């Protein structure tokens, strides 16, 4: 993904022969913050690709006796000295008055953090059977495995659930945006290239869809999904529902580009020398706005992620046993559960960081794709 930087000496002459994407990359690289965000997004994508590797426990394993354990944060110092990261064990005591379980850190037991530990078995990328995990605590008595981010109502490990949720939330964003990109480019392209009645019809359709209030429509559509559907079907249905209203913005963008490019000298020249329509579109027009499309797509992904979170949070999107950030946040749906277990809001932090970095990355790409920006 990251191209080697051009040699300092021939940078001047390289500019004249560089293809458009390379010049975009050069401009992008100057935006330091966006570059940092590219790394963060890359890391989140890595988690989404292999959440099992980053998880410390089986995210579906419940344990009624270990519900609502607060996060066992990594400790870096012991008795005033810097040490290898470890966590304290916890001990549950029932409050004799409220009968609530109170978890207190047990300073005596320390579990050092270990890397590349053996844990629950899984298949990497769905293919390679293995039981190695990036982080873990190997020498813990059974039933006392530390929970880095605490546990939920059913005693499930929140850290591991968060890793699994990353896969679903990120991929739903990507798939929904992919569907709307295809629709947007197809309909926007047709609209911009042919003009006339077709253009008019498609533009009216877009205006109509944009005049609909999105969340009520999404809610109604999701409520229409049969409750009996298996998780994977619901997953695809939700992506389609999100994409259904999401393609209009991209279509507008593509149409605008087509309209302005149609009259450009190089397109007219290509038409005059007898290039076929397909050739004009795909080898002359499309390359000159690909970078804009990439920027627009990058900015559309965070919106989709937020929308999935909304839907699942309201209980109309993905449903357990599926794990997504929205499903995780549903555990913290009211004040009472937040007061009881504030750490259930941590998945929200992941949503914010992901959306934030994708937005900055998209803005950086958009600025870089504009050849007239200073």
């Amino acid at each position, binding site marked *: 993904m990251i191209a080697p930087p051009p040699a300092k000496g021939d940078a001047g002459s390289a500019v004249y022969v560089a293809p458009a994407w390379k010049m975009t990359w050069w401009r992008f690289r100057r935006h330091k913050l966006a570059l940092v965000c590219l790394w963060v997004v890359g890391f989140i994508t890595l988690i989404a690709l292999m959440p099992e590797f980053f998880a410390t426990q089986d995210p579906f394993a419940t344990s009624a006796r270990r519900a609502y354990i607060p996060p066992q944060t990594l400790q870096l110092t012991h008795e005033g000295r810097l040490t290898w990261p470890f966590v304290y064990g916890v001990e549950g005591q029932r409050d004799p008055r409220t009968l609530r379980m109170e978890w207190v850190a047990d300073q005596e037991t320390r579990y050092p953090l270990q890397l590349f530990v053996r844990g629950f078995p899984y298949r990497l990328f769905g293919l390679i059977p293995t039981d190695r995990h990036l982080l873990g605590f190997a020498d813990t008595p059974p039933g006392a495995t530390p929970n880095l981010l605490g546990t939920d109502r059913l005693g499930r490990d929140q850290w591991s659930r968060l890793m699994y949720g990353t896969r679903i939330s990120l991929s739903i964003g990507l798939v929904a945006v992919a569907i709307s990109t295809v629709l947007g480019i197809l309909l926007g392209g047709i609209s911009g290239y042919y003009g006339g009645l077709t253009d008019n019809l498609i533009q009216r359709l877009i205006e109509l869809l944009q005049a609909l209030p999105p*969340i009520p429509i999404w809610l*109604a559509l999701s409520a229409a999904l049969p409750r009996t559907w298996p998780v994977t079907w619901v997953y695809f249905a939700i992506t389609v529902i999100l994409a259904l209203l999401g393609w209009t913005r991209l279509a507008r963008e593509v149409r605008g580009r087509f309209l302005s490019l149609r009259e450009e000298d190089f397109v007219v020249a290509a038409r005059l020398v007898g290039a076929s329509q397909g050739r004009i579109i795909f080898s002359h027009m499309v390359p000159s706005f690909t970078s804009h499309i990439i920027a627009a797509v990058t900015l559309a992904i965070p919106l989709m992620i937020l929308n999935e979170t909304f839907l699942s949070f309201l209980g109309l999107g993905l449903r357990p046993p599926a794990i997504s950030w929205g499903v995780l946040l549903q555990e913290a749906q009211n004040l009472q559960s937040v007061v009881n277990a504030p750490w259930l809001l941590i998945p929200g932090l992941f949503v914010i960081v992901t959306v*934030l970095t994708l937005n900055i990355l998209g803005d950086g790409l958009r600025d870089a794709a504009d050849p007239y920006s200073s």
Partner: protein
Amino acid sequence: MHWFILKRLLIIPFLLLIFSVISFVLIQAPPGDFLTSYIAELAQGGTTIDQAQIDALRRQYGLDRPIYMQYLLWVGNLLQGDLGVSLEWRRANVELIGERLVLTLALTTASLIFTWAVAIPIGILSATRQYSALDYVFTVLNYIGLATPNFLLALVLMWIAFDRFGMTVTGLFSPEYAQAPWSWGRFVNLLQHLWLPMIVLGVAGTAQIARVVRANLLDELGKPYSEMARAKGLPEWKLVLKYPTRVAIAPVISTLGWYVPQLLSGGLVVSVVMSLPTIGPLLLRALIGQDMYLAGTIILIFCVLTVIGTLISDILLALLDPRIRMEGN
């Protein structure tokens, strides 16, 4: 000008017709109807209902007729101002929706005013002090504002208020005013509760609009007329506020078209979290319970509000910008 408004007005009935079809299709889409989910609910509670009663209910609600007849009946009644009856609540929809709609509009308007009151000064400050520390702070805040789902912000603020100050900031009224008829005291009580949902709802939009104002103002500040005014010796703040700002905030008006639907949609989620007595939680309940006429009517109301928002923004824009006004002639 009149032609322009007339043209916009003429599209509205057509749009509403399409929206009514979409709403109806949406509420018809779930498998089964209200009675099947009602029977299931009764069965869960251990009661059964005999077939004759079911048939009678089905006839009473018009659920035995073909779908197009159901649609025509619904739309026909709507046109006569009859919003229908909620199947679940066994009350007229007008009663259920009435006050909630007023509160929804109050919340939306308050958020809109909050957004403009905060976003425009921030935009002006960041543009006139481009690349200053202040500009960077606002940029960072804007990005965070855009990235935070509003229900999360609501939860965090509610939690802080409870944890630090021992306040429960849910709802729009104190208990003694919740069911009371409208009075001055109730109105004041509403204002005391409205500010938090108003801020929660307005934050994302504030971030977006501040960015728009900043970008527009930066474009305007470099134009020859600004240079000219500066050369004539006009004080900088007077110059900025008098000329470029007026041009720069015009596009903000056009954002009304998408901002109002966004506020209405966002308000729905915030209302569920903060248990506000607005229309949102009612819609959610109706959708889950397949209370089809109530859900359909609410969705249609959302569509109508969106259309009105767009219309107002079109008219305001035409008033502001002669180029748009002339388009109709």
